[in-house]
């Protein structure tokens, strides 16, 4: 039965949890260390994913595909433009005439435009639609849809670069989630064991509590608080190490890899610390809950 707890009683719970943490100091340190390592690994992968995501977003913004057109009438071209805009995931469609394409080519060649001499009167370029996708993840499917439209002769986009970047992002996220889940589980079991030792050490007190009419929650609370404290301290340790490490890593890497759009430490680290604190608390509470449920039988 869950009943409202008086502030004075909470004082007893915290005192009880505190003295237990001190009494089992080695297990306390082991639990905090495990939670800290688990959350540290998670944090590293989160920071990697955020930064690769930033790079992907930058590439994404630049990812566009070019649909070269067959020899079609202006009426057919207008219809094709409408069809392109109707494809799901298409953000923008821009028509590029042969003349505009030629001008761009000239600009691109710049000082070397003499290589194009002789072609001015016989522009070999084709009309095209430049299609920008809402997300790089959808470029492949949009390209396939565009290629199927009547009037489109060829579709070109930086397929390999986009796909590689996307697969790296997916892999980092996947490995990060997998590793974190494994380590979080390990941390939970270590916390459960720490609490189990506490429960064992205090079994006499617990049995007396039950005989003198304490509620199940009165017995449980100190252990839940103990798990919560272990999880939170682990998260604080992990967040501190991450904040310090990321701050210095960004400072030194920004100079070494200037093209990479590193995400600024603030407010990223604040959000990360908050997420780790919540996760640490969750790991602690679930870990101790497992023990309390299994070994207290209350």
């Amino acid at each position, binding site marked *: 039965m869950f009943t409202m707890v*008086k502030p004075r009683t909470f004082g007893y719970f915290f005192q009880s949890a505190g003295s237990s943490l001190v009494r089992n100091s080695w297990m306390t340190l082991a639990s905090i260390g495990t939670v800290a390592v688990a959350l540290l690994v998670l944090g590293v992968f989160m920071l990697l994913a955020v930064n690769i995501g930033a790079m992907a977003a930058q590439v994404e913004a630049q990812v566009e595909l070019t649909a070269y057109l067959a020899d079609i009438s202006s009426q057919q071209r207008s219809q094709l433009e409408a069809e392109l805009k109707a494809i799901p995931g298409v953000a923008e469609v821009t028509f590029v005439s042969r003349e505009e394409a030629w001008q761009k080519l000239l600009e691109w060649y710049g000082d070397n435009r003499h290589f194009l001499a002789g072609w001015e009167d016989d522009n070999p370029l084709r009309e095209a639609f430049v299609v920008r996708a809402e997300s790089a993840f959808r470029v492949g499917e949009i390209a396939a849809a565009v290629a199927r439209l009547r009037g489109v002769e060829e579709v070109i986009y930086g397929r390999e670069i986009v796909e590689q970047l996307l697969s790296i992002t997916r892999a980092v996220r996947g490995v990060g989630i997998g590793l974190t889940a494994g380590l979080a589980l390990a941390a939970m079991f270590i916390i459960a064991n720490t609490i189990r030792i506490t429960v064992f050490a205090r079994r*006499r*007190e617990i049995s007396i*509590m039950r*005989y*003198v*009419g*304490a509620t*199940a929650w*009165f017995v449980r609370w100190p252990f839940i608080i103990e798990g919560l404290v272990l999880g939170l301290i682990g998260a604080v340790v992990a967040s501190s190490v991450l904040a310090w490490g990321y701050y210095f890593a960004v400072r030194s890497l920004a100079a070494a890899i200037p093209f990479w759009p590193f995400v600024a430490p603030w407010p990223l680290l604040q959000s990360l610390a908050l997420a780790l604190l919540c996760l640490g608390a969750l790991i602690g509470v679930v870990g101790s809950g497992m023990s309390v449920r299994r070994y207290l039988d209350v």
Partner: protein
Amino acid sequence: MISLNEVSKRYPGSRELALQSVTMTVGSGEFVFLVGQSGAGKSTLLRLLFREYLPSSGVITYRGRNLARFSGGELLRYRRKIGMVFQDFRLLKQKTVFENVAFALEVVGHSPQSIRKSVPAALEEVGLLDRMLAFPAELSGGEQQRVGIARAMVRKPQLILADEPTGNVDPDNALQLMELFAAINRAGTTIVIATHASDMVDRLRQRVVQLERGRIIRDVKRGGYSNEP
């Protein structure tokens, strides 16, 4: 107050019944000795009364209500009307006499003022007021059991269940403890004691329920330990 009707108890994994078709009533204000050899079912009966266990068959009622059907809240309120005393005292070694007795009030949310008032009163009743700052290790067996009794009675329970309360104390102290129980009973508290202490039972001449292999073989109003059924 509490009635048992055809109550049997079989522990999981055991082929034998710890209690067999026990029918008895404990009236309000009664003093009952449960006697019998080890394994006769005395402790099982006490644990069923505390509703630590449920009977395998039969019904136990408290003031007409089936204990097995109590909700979580009802069970908690029921247990708070009971004081438990154990053979091994079950005191917390790191707490003083005062703190051990206060613990029974703390866990049910009594205020510090009420604890400061009730605990010395209980310790005075058991004759340990001058030892309230001592730790259990500094007390004799008899004194430790007095602390256990003070803890059981500090909440003024309706019923005290004691399992071999004199099992770990010398005969002189055992007699004093029994006299203490008798005094608590005279003040209106119902008392059920499981014991081997035949001389104490003979001396106090209270109701005696004798168990053998889980069955009641004798239930006399003012009997001795060794009367034949």
